[in-house]
């Protein structure tokens, strides 16, 4: 015999280990004497297909990659079910369970990774499983036979596939996810929202933003999960799918350099030149991967290196697809966009499709697709090859077929050349012929006309340029450029009224729901539309909608007004401008205790404490609360102050109890959110000492009753009010004011103050609504209902700990200067 062969030992009989062997054999089938150790007692199988096995869609036999014959045919010694327990790099030996030692010339570490187990109380109960290998799948299948509910901690790819599989096996499933978005490392909020709905349809319930506290047990078995907020979810099996940790134990013990994974260079070599690492246990250029695509790239490089060729692995781009039947999800690259990136978004509310392609420097930088992921591969290719897509920009989002059909042609002639049967509007399924036909037959000259008669471009609007070109082409110069209702912002073509109408008509109850249904052009809105939508939802669904605090300007988020030096001002309510010695004492004490630099009487008849440090806010509020004071909402698009004069109680001219009415109004209306700020004034007689005729809503008391005024302002614009109506009793005054406030809440556009709203819709139209007694009652009742959820002091809630993170620094003070 000639020279003895070099000995190649592989630790790990998984995806990476066996692929590496294949790559070596492909290049040089005779060079090595190969030995593989696998801790699992079975041959090499396709781990990613464990999900379909769990779901009962595949059997284990169908997912085997290399069977026993393969090892035999290639002269590979397989030690399956035998774990390697130590490496001796000096002696070039590996030591396995059962006292077996094997010598190597080259060693490959392909140990994969270990599922993370959260150290929760109860984590060692029977029925707590992870999702990594066939044993785990078998344990889950066995548990599923008993029925009941599965709790899955972790809303990433693995957790969702586990939950779906268990539902297919007849269990109910609840996924507990720490983040607010499912699969947040692959999906943006919009896609995450759609995924959540699709899973719900398939029986997988999801709880977001949930912190697990303890696993509850009964007789040593899982019985449920307790969350930090006290909720208890009953369950019969608990799957932890909270992430993986590269298996570095062996390497570490052998003195090989490890970071998060076993650190390798571009040749997959570790700090020991005879030892290589690949797959999930490896860390290359600071990245430890958790998907198979990089493994194939790594193994190709290693195959070259181990057979004496030059090769370098330079990292991999990743794409993800979720393996849940009927749910098409794709994500790759910078799917979240960012500064310097441009988003092209397509939504089809009817088909439940959301697509977002991110372009940076004229190239595709990432994509996320939901509901129709057929073009995922194409976008990924464009991304990987760094193709210049500037020319394809307009049609890119419609996918490969349409883009290639129009490629390299002048868009005008391309449009002209399009066959009549070609679909133009994907949302409503309208083809070119239907549009040009309608234009000529019905003498349409505007985009709106085409929208009204064909529905083309009436949904997401992304085909608008195409429809406009068709108009131009068909009409020549007869085409008029469109002017429609002003859109809320650049994220949509819908106006405020349309948005509000559809929120109600379609029962849209969250920001992502609105953005999907109204086919927003941006992935998650902007700083203009988010606060507006947040308000519209709050107004439409009192008591139901959960306020989105990140969609609020700082003042409304922290319930105080930010000042030029970053400190805050605090204005407690002083009902109708009336105070007591006790309140004043409490204010004085707070000012002393927290060394508040300025105490000022405001123009709104109350007291402002200026220069409060953010961290002190909850403590300041606690003291004010203790003296019976609540937030004055001096920062809110909501009810601010109600100014009053002394009225009939004291004043020699007073005709009615203006102070009492002001207090009554403020006590009923405080806490309400409105499109823009609302200030009230109540004067006891036409001398008008409370300046009621320059307030949003003013009352002038007269001998015969009350004049109700609206539409005043004395800020940027000085505007006297107009009389809305006259009423005889205080009761009617309160009713009327609540009714007109509600009308404004329901019809006003965000940031539009009452006077601007009145200018837009006309005083007469407001009067007509208020004078109709039934309508007035209904408006009043809706206001009163909404107030049941609004008269809650935001300060007291925060004193009690709500959003505590907002007021505390993230960590203790660092005693060094950052780099």
């Amino acid at each position, binding site marked *: 015999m000639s020279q003895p062969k070099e000995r190649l030992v592989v630790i790990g009989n998984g995806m990476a280990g066996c692929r590496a062997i294949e790559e070596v054999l492909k290049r040089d089938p005779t060079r090595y004497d190969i030995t593989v150790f696998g801790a699992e007692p079975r041959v090499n199988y396709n781990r990613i297909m464990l999900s379909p096995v769990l779901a009962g869609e595949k059997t284990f036999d169908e997912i085997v990659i290399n069977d026993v014959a393969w090892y035999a045919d290639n002269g590979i010694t397989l030690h399956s079910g035998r774990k390697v327990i130590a490496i001796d790099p000096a002696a070039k030996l590996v030591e396995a369970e059962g006292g077996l030692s094997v010598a190597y010339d080259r060693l490959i570490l392909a140990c994969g990774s270990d599922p993370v187990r959260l150290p929760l109380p109860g984590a060692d109960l029977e029925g707590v499983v992870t999702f990594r290998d066939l044993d785990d799948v078998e344990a889950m299948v066995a548990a599923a036979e008993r029925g009941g509910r599965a709790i899955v901690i972790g809303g990433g790819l693995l957790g969702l596939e586990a939950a779906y599989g268990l539902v297919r096996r007849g269990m109910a499933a609840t996924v507990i996810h*720490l*983040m*607010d*978005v499912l699969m*947040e*490392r692959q999906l*943006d*909020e919009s896609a995450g929202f759609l995924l959540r709905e699709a899973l719900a349809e398939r029986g997988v319930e999801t709880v977001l933003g949930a912190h697990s506290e303890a696993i509850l047990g009964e007789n040593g078995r899982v019985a449920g999960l307790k969350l930090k907020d006290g909720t208890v979810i009953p369950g019969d099996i608990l799957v932890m799918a909270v992430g993986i940790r590269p298996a570095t134990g062996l390497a570490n013990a052998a003195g090989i*350099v490890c*970071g*998060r994974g076993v*650190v*390798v*260079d571009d040749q997959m070599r570790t*700090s020991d030149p005879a030892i290589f690492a690949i797959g999930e246990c490896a*860390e*290359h*250029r*600071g990245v430890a991967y958790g998907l198979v695509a990089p493994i194939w790239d790594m193994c190709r490089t290693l195959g070259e290196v181990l057979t004496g060729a030059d090769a370098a692995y330079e990292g991999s781009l990743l794409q993800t697809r979720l393996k849940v039947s009927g749910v098409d999800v794709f994500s790759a690259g910078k*799917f*979240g*966009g*960012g*500064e310097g990136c441009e988003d092209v978004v397509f939504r089809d509310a009817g088909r439940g499709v959301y697509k977002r392609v991110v372009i940076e420097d004229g190239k595709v930088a990432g994509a996320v697709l939901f509901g129709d992921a057929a073009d995922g591969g194409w976008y990924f290719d464009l991304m990987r090859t760094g193709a210049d897509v500037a020319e394809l920009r307009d049609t890119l989002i419609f996918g490969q077929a349409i883009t290639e059909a129009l490629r390299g042609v002048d868009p005008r002639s391309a449009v002209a050349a399009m066959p009549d049967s070609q679909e133009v509007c994907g949302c409503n399924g309208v083809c070119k012929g239907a549009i040009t036909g309608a234009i000529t037959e019905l003498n349409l000259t505007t985009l709106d006309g085409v929208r009204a008669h064909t529905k083309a471009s009436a949904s997401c609007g992304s085909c608008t340029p195409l429809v406009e070109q068709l108009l131009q082409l068909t009409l020549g110069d007869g085409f008029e450029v469109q002017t429609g209702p002003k859109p809320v912002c650049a994220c949509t073509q819908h106006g405020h009224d349309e948005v509000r109408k559809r929120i109600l008509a379609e029962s849209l109850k969250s920001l992502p729901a609105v953005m999907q249904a109204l086919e927003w052009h941006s*992935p*998650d809105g*902007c*700083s203009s539309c*988010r606060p507006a939508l947040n308000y519209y939802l709050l107004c439409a669904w009192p008591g139901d909608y959960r306020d989105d*605090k*990140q*969609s*609020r*300007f*700082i003042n409304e988020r*922290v319930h105080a007004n*930010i000042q*030029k*030096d*970053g400190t805050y001002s605090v204005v407690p309510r002083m009902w109708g401008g009336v105070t007591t010695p006790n309140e004043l004492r409490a204010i004085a004490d707070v000012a002393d205790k927290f060394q508040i630099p300025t105490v000022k009487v405001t123009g709104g008849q109350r007291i402002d404490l200026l220069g409060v440090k*953010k961290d002190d806010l909850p403590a300041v509020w606690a003291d004010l609360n203790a003296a019976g004071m609540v937030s004055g909402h001096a920062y809110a698009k909501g009810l601010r102050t109600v100014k009053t004069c002394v009225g009939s109680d004291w004043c020699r001219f007073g005709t009615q109890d203006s102070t009492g009415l002001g207090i009554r109004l403020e006590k009923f209306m405080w806490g309400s959110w409105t499109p823009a700020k609302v200030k009230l004034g109540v004067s006891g007689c036409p001398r008008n000492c409370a300046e009621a005729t320059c307030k949003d809503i003013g009352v002038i008391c007269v001998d015969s009753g009350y004049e109700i005024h609206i539409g005043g302002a004395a800020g940027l614009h000085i505007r006297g009010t107009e009389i809305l109506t006259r009423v005889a009793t205080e009761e009617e005054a309160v009713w009327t004011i609540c009714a007109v406030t509600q009308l404004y809440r329901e019809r006003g556009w965000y940031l539009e103050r009452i006077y601007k709203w009145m200018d837009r819709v006309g005083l007469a139209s407001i009067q007509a609504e208020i004078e109709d007694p039934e309508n007035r009652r209904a408006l009043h009742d809706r206001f009163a209902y909404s107030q049941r959820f609004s008269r809650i002091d935001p300060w007291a809630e925060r004193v009690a700990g709500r959003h505590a*993170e907002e007021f505390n*620094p*993230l*960590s*203790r*003070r*660092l*005693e*060094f*200067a*950052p*780099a």
Partner: protein
Amino acid sequence: MNALVKDPMTWTDVGAVTDIPLRGARRVPSAQGDIAIFRTGDGKVFALMDKCPHKGGPLSQGIVHGHAVACPLHNWSIELATGEPLGADRGKGCAPVVPLEVRDGRLLLGRT
């Protein structure tokens, strides 16, 4: 870059990524003044000195949109990756960037 060379930076753990709300920010006080750590809608994190290049507004209190923050005082838009103002205010100074790394879901601030 050679992955085997030891990192010259010292890293300090200041908390978990999830301690920062999506589209939000938290402050870390330091000897040099507050540091703002932001988390964007797509889950990325950035650290800047908490001082707007305009008039020193606390950027940590602004609305985070895309990969930028709107300063709460006068609404300049500051790019999180560079600390530079965007749009019309480009070139007018910048908020210093603080080295930040994420490891195992923890936030690490760097110093040399």
